């Protein structure tokens, strides 16, 4: 197992809509195009479900960058485009209050075959994090011990 215990790298959380970014990530895979492996993609139906505190909490737990890949105006949900933009703006306010660089959270419209835009977003975030370093430089991470034994 020791080979897995490499030095901690920055972690990028990608929340990607099933109708958009998640399928775009699959399309990137189908094209066998490489990108950094510190990218963790979770499928979401519609990102308006996340309260701004969710993003703050994720940063506190040690996520260094979050890409929200939504479907924008192509969304099957009425509220996705406007609602998500609003949540992101609220999140930026909270991030500023906590001293978190707001570039760590980014919203991007990614469609199901948006291979190049997907790669661009991932690489940009990766480069950004290399420059500004892990989130722990900005806030004290809070490991989630309690969560480990749940439920």
């Amino acid at each position, binding site marked *: 197992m020791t*080979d*897995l*215990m490499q030095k901690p790298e920055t972690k990028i959380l990608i929340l990607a809509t099933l109708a958009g970014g998640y399928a775009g990530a699959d399309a990137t*895979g189908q094209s066998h195009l490489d990108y950094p*492996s510190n990218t963790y993609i979770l499928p979401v*139906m519609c990102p*308006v479900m996340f309260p701004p505190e*969710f993003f703050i909490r994720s940063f506190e737990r040690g996520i260094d960058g979050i890409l929200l890949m939504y479907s924008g105006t192509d969304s099957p949900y009425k509220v996705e485009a406007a609602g998500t933009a609003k949540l992101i703006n609220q999140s930026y306010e909270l991030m500023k209050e906590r001293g978190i660089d707001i570039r760590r959270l980014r919203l991007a419209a990614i469609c199901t075959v948006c291979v190049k835009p997907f790669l661009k977003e991932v690489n940009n975030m990766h480069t950004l994090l290399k420059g500004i370093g892990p989130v722990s430089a900005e806030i004290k991470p809070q490991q989630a011990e309690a969560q480990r034994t749940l439920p």
Partner: protein
Amino acid sequence: MSEKPKIGVYTCYCGGNISHTVKCEQVAKVMADQPDVVISRTNMSLCSDAGQSQIEEDIRELGVNRVVIGACAPSLHEPTFRNTVVRAGLNPYLYHHVGLREQDSWVHSCDCDGATCKAVRLMSAGVAKARFLDPLEPIRLEAEKQALVIGGGVAGLRSALDIANQGLRVVLVEKSPFLGGRMAQLAKVFPTGEEAQRLLSELIDEVVQHPRIGVFIQTEVVGVSGYVGKYGIDLLQHGRGVTAENGEALAAGCTQFVPDEFNYNLTERKVIYKPYQGCYPALPAVDWDHYDGESILLNGKKEVLQDQAQPYQLTVGAIVVATGFDPYTPHTGEYGYGELPQVATLAELIRHLAVHPEAKSLRWNGRIVRDVVMVHCVGSREIEGVDALQEDGLVNNYCSRVCCTATLHMIEELHTHFPGLNIFDLYQDIRTYGRGHEEYYRSALSSGTRFVRYNGEDRPEVIAALEGDTHPVLVHVKDALTYNQELEIPADLVVLATGMQPRQIDDLVRMLKVSRGNDRFLLEVHPKLRPVETAVNGVILAGTAQGPMNIQESILAASAAAAKVVSLLGSGQVELQPFVAAVNAAKCDGTGACVEACEYEGAIALETLVENGKEVKRAVVTAANCSGCGACVSVCPNRAIDVQGWTLAQYEAMVDAIAMDIVDLVEAE
């Protein structure tokens, strides 16, 4: 959660696709040591029969009650594995799929360690989510196997017939006293030259004789409630005013005349009337909007007729809106319409010819017509800033699609019946796009029709000729086909090829909560994914209520609408995905933030409940109307609401698993 999670974790080699990059055995080993995991296996090809059987066996033998699979993209095999767990007796939603191929091995082929670390984190996130999985049941709603079709024109009739022929019951409502709609006002139809009224009467016969169709004529929809599967409909049927016994006699005795809208007011009719011979029903009806209330002589007795309107209520599973179109009516003075008697619309000319079938020469307002000017795109393809605004402040910037072929069809008819006519055709683009339509264009060209191409920014002008002139009107137009030469065309008749606009159905739009586009026609969800469905579940569009169409296109749209209705209601049940909002009543304190955030009509509301003798407000979700977007989740101050299957707690657990250092995960061994 009642039972303790017993998680089975499966990491697929995908025949090397994953295992060439991701060290699957290592991933499986780390997973085996995570809390609640009872078995962690790898497999060369999990989707194979053997792989699937292994999972089934573990569910049965080891009591696995949550399944996490790391394999190809969920879009490929999620349905496969849902079926697998169901076969072993597990709820399909107790399975979670992690994409390790498209989103890991295939994109980190030069970074095996990185890909393996990623797989470990993604799989442990999957396990973390699995702990929070609850069994879910699809939302099944009883559906009334009956549809309401609003509108008794060709689209409504066709839709009703197709739905009924596929085994459902249909209630067809028509606001006017006769079936047939706008199509009944046409003579011959393109491209076949068949008689419109004959085609209609064949269709109407089938509809009215169908055992599963109920027809309500002179009936309005006055109330709509409920949701897909169970719409409550209030109808109001106006009285016919006559009976089978006295109908004809009353019509004969009637002396009140009103303009006949069937002939676009070119003629008059009695207020007890039939629009045309062969109409359905054959029984005359009273035009209540215009009846003056005076008594009518019947067998020597004076009768005063009264509208005895009758309300009806019914329940339907789906609603087809086939309310049709109105021909565009030019403003007074638009191309001289309404001011110059020798300016008519194409629709009017069609009725004029139908009313005078035997005429040897074309006469308009008593005047023999020798020179005719047809003007295309009247009330269509209007340009903002150039054309006058319509009443609602918009211009009709759309193409009405049928007028080009209809105009050229008319030119052919005119040339056939009145060979001596000189016809000028003023157009922008000739849009004879359909099968058999281009032939009318060629026919018009070969019969000597003079085509003049005008620019939409410089429309033709129609003015009165000076008294004593050879012709009553003059048409001024710049002809793009001859270097924008200015032409003055003397004419005996100017025919305006008017476009289509949707019928005035504001009340219905409000009741059904459907949306309209900028062109005021009803809006479909998506022109390709769901071209005849509205955003309101169970409300389907048929025909020209949705946009300009010809008869063939209306019929196709109507049949497509029928297919959607039958798919929806055929089983008597509607099933919706369980991914909808659910309220934890214990945490809810009725702030109403969720209700405010929700964009879906009737999806969530505050209800007053009695708790411990006190009245409290609690949010209640109506699953049938909820899209599962989660707008309510992010605004709830108490975290009392979640989208089932996609809860915030699940995401937090997944984030924690991803954030955890690999060292910690490995140490969990």
